[in-house]
């Protein structure tokens, strides 16, 4: 191991009332993969932002390559590049421009346009695995490929320190595997690789050291074989893991004892992605159905078509109404009338009103129902908010604070609470736990469990197979834009689902081999 590249001591940072970091010490060396783990709100993203020069600490010292950084350009000049959790691309600009953004001088270009195109095409092909046109607009790419653009942006600068802040969140499994391979290559080149993540299961296989944060302070550094899921969870939550917890992070078992099983949502011949095969789908009351598929195989579009968020290309969708009749769903208004809720994982884009307060974000759809003589009944909504924040264990300041003062996981809780307050019959969640920590995830699963127990039908789309196991009664696997088939009950294992994602629902399929061929 080389010298210390990053040295942080006694760093503190507050945002208004919220103490993001109390007192953090952290150091990372050249040629190691160093993970920063912690729950939501533990301050790990703030720490990454401090190292990248975006956030200036209130106290303490930050040295990267022996120098302090006070702005992103200074950090980049010091050889530290960051890949952020949000997929930050400049829409309306070409892919090559998005890769080389910030590397060019204001007056004279350091790399010619032709060279920019050539290098970004080469780098992205090696990262994504298939060729792309560097002069195309960046918005022509899928979310996962845009994330690769932000990764290429960091790599193109040949940094000495590279920070990955939840960078696998938008990637599918083979993509994440390719990124881990890239990290190992960087390590062998002597780069200091810092990984901020909540995917602790994957972390255990490749991190050299792991610093755990809890409530804005570093609570331990593990190295080598000490990095195990149970040790990490113990440090993150501050409680020793009890027996079963260590076995897995999300093996939560629902008591499915619902005999009635009436159909609450039905689709016939549904085509969500133009050109795909038509699919039939049924959701029964009291069940939790998982949606799985490789990235961009149409599962998200199918979910949106089911909930009226996206127009269908063909086929019909209908939901059970209050009197046992089926109401057609062909628009969002129809879905609202039929009490079908859609919760997006892309909070920033489709979920929150960033200018409004926590309480307003929660109460938005309730304003229509809770009125007294034409005025909004704020007391009733306030009471509902209190209920919601108790049941979902919301960790927030005053309800009048802006929603953006909350961490990602807590923002998601507000959005879920908002939908649940409308007593939906069908709840469809599109990867809601992206970038959410283990504890919040567990609270979320328990909520969904209770919800299904009360007779609602739940659809849960996840990019992490682990999430579906133990939560879902049935898992629908998608491929080529259509519903390929089902994995049911005890057969829901990560091997079976993964095999299905590659188009093989038969039980004797070799997943390992397919993974190798894919990447």
């Amino acid at each position, binding site marked *: 191991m080389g010298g210390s590249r990053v040295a942080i001591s006694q760093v503190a940072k507050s945002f208004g009332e919220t103490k993001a970091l109390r007192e953090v010490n952290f150091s990372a060396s050249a040629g190691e993969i160093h993970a920063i783990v912690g729950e939501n709100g533990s301050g790990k993203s703030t720490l990454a932002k401090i190292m*990248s020069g*975006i956030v200036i600490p209130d106290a303490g010292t930050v040295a990267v390559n022996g120098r302090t950084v006070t702005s*992103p*350009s200074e*950090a*980049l*000049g010091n050889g530290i590049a*960051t890949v*952020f959790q949000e997929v*930050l*691309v*400049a*829409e*309306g*600009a070409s892919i090559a*421009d*998005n890769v080389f*953004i*910030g*590397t*060019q*001088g*204001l*007056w*004279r*270009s350091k790399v010619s346009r032709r060279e920019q195109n050539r290098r970004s095409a080469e780098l992205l092909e090696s990262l994504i695995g*298939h*060729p*792309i*046109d560097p*002069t*195309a*607009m960046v918005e*022509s*790419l899928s979310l996962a490929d845009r994330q690769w653009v932000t990764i290429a*942006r960091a790599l193109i600068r040949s940094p000495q320190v590279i920070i990955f802040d939840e960078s696998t969140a938008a990637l599918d499994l083979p993509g994440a595997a390719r990124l881990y391979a890239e990290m190992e290559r960087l390590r062998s080149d002597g780069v200091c690789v810092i990984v901020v993540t909540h995917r602790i299961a994957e972390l255990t296989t490749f991190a050299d050291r792991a610093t755990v944060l809890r409530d804005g302070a570093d609570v331990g550094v593990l190295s080598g074989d000490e990095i195990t899921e149970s040790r990490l969870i113990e440090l993150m939550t501050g409680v020793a893991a009890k027996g079963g917890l260590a076995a897995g992070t999300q093996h939560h078992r629902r008591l499915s004892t619902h005999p009635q099983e009436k159909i609450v949502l039905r689709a016939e011949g549904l085509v969500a992605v*133009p*050109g795909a095969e038509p699919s039939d789908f049924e959701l029964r009351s009291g069940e939790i159905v998982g949606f799985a598929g490789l990235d961009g195989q149409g599962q998200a579009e199918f979910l949106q078509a089911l909930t009226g968020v996206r127009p269908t290309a063909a086929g019909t969708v209908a939901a059970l109404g209050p009197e046992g009749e089926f109401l057609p769903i062909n628009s969002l208004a129809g879905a609202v009338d039929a009490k079908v809720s859609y919760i997006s994982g892309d909070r920033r884009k489709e979920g929150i009103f960033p200018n409004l307060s926590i309480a307003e974000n929660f109460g938005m759809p309730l304003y229509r129902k809770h009125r007294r003589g034409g005025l909004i009944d704020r007391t009733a909504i306030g009471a509902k908010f209190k209920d919601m924040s108790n049941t979902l264990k919301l960790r927030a300041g005053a309800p009048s604070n802006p929603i953006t003062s909350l961490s990602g996981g807590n923002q998601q809780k507000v959005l879920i609470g908002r939908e649940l307050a409308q007593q939906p019959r069908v709840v469809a969640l599109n990867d809601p736990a992206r970038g959410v920590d283990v504890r919040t995830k567990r609270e979320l699963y328990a909520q969904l469990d209770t919800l299904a127990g009360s007779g609602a039908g739940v659809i849960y789309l996840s990019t992490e197979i682990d999430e579906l196991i133990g939560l879902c009664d049935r898992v629908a696997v998608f491929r080529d834009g259509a519903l390929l088939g089902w994995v049911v009950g005890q057969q829901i294992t990560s091997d079976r689902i993964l095999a299905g994602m590659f188009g093989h629902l038969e039980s004797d399929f070799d997943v390992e081999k397919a993974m190798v061929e894919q990447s």
Partner: protein
Amino acid sequence: MKPQSPFGRLTNRTSYTFAAWGLLIVLLVVCSIRAPYLFTASGIGGLLVSAGPLVLIVMGLTVTALVGSGVDLSAGPLMIFINVTLVRVLFDNQIGSPAVVFAWALGIGVVIQVVQAIVITVARIEPVIVTLSAFLALSGINLVILTQPEGQAPRWLAEWGAGRSILAPMTIVLLVAIVGWWAFSRSPLFTSIRLVGSNQRTAFVSGVPVAAVRIVAHGVSGLLIGAGGLAYTGQIASGNPTQGGTYTLAAITALVLGGISLAGGRGGVLGSIPGAIAVTLISFTLTTFSLGTLASFVVQLSYGLILVLALLISVIIPAVWRKRKEAMA
């Protein structure tokens, strides 16, 4: 990803300009019937003389819109400010050498735009509020400096107002501006401007000096508005303090018609220049109908209706086109 033919890529890249070009073609067809003399050498020269100032300030507005400052309301009064100060400070004192006049016009344009940019980036006040304040302040000052249309431009500048042939001075001014833009659009600065405009946060975390880029972009805009002030002074060969508001509105119309995104990052002069010429042609076409005293009201009414119609069509046609393509696939 689907491979794309060079033609397909070009039409994709320039689809924002379709409304402006479409309207321009329609107007030219109308003019060929109502006023065929427009298609003579002096007709084209004359058209470019009347379009010149608007084209130049719309180019300036394009830069500020690209960098994410939205519509620059101050452009019209700033152009007039340059016009009235040229008359009062230079021409009234018999100063008329081209070097001084150019330096004065371009310099004032740059200084006032850069001051606005500093207020926007350093004090972080919404651009629309800053440019509105500048609009109001400059409109007032203009009437203090010059209470009524008066003054006399030096002969070389007054020549700009004569559009006797296609290669009249105004045509050359516009060609220089367009060639300058072509070079500017290939500079790394231009890329930075578009990147800052399309996503300021991405640009900031990627190490782009956002404040500097925005200030420089406003400076470039000031340069073009300064040139617009010169062109306007040449066009009327004197000073006129009253036309600022009209020019701002016409320029915004041309900008929107030209498909420039007011949210930043998208668009270019391929849309805004035909937009500006189309706006000029609208009032020209209307003068071929004898409307008498109603003329100015009808012009404004037409601006509004044509703007909405052109935008509606430019939204509807691509949507229908895409539907058809999807149905065929």
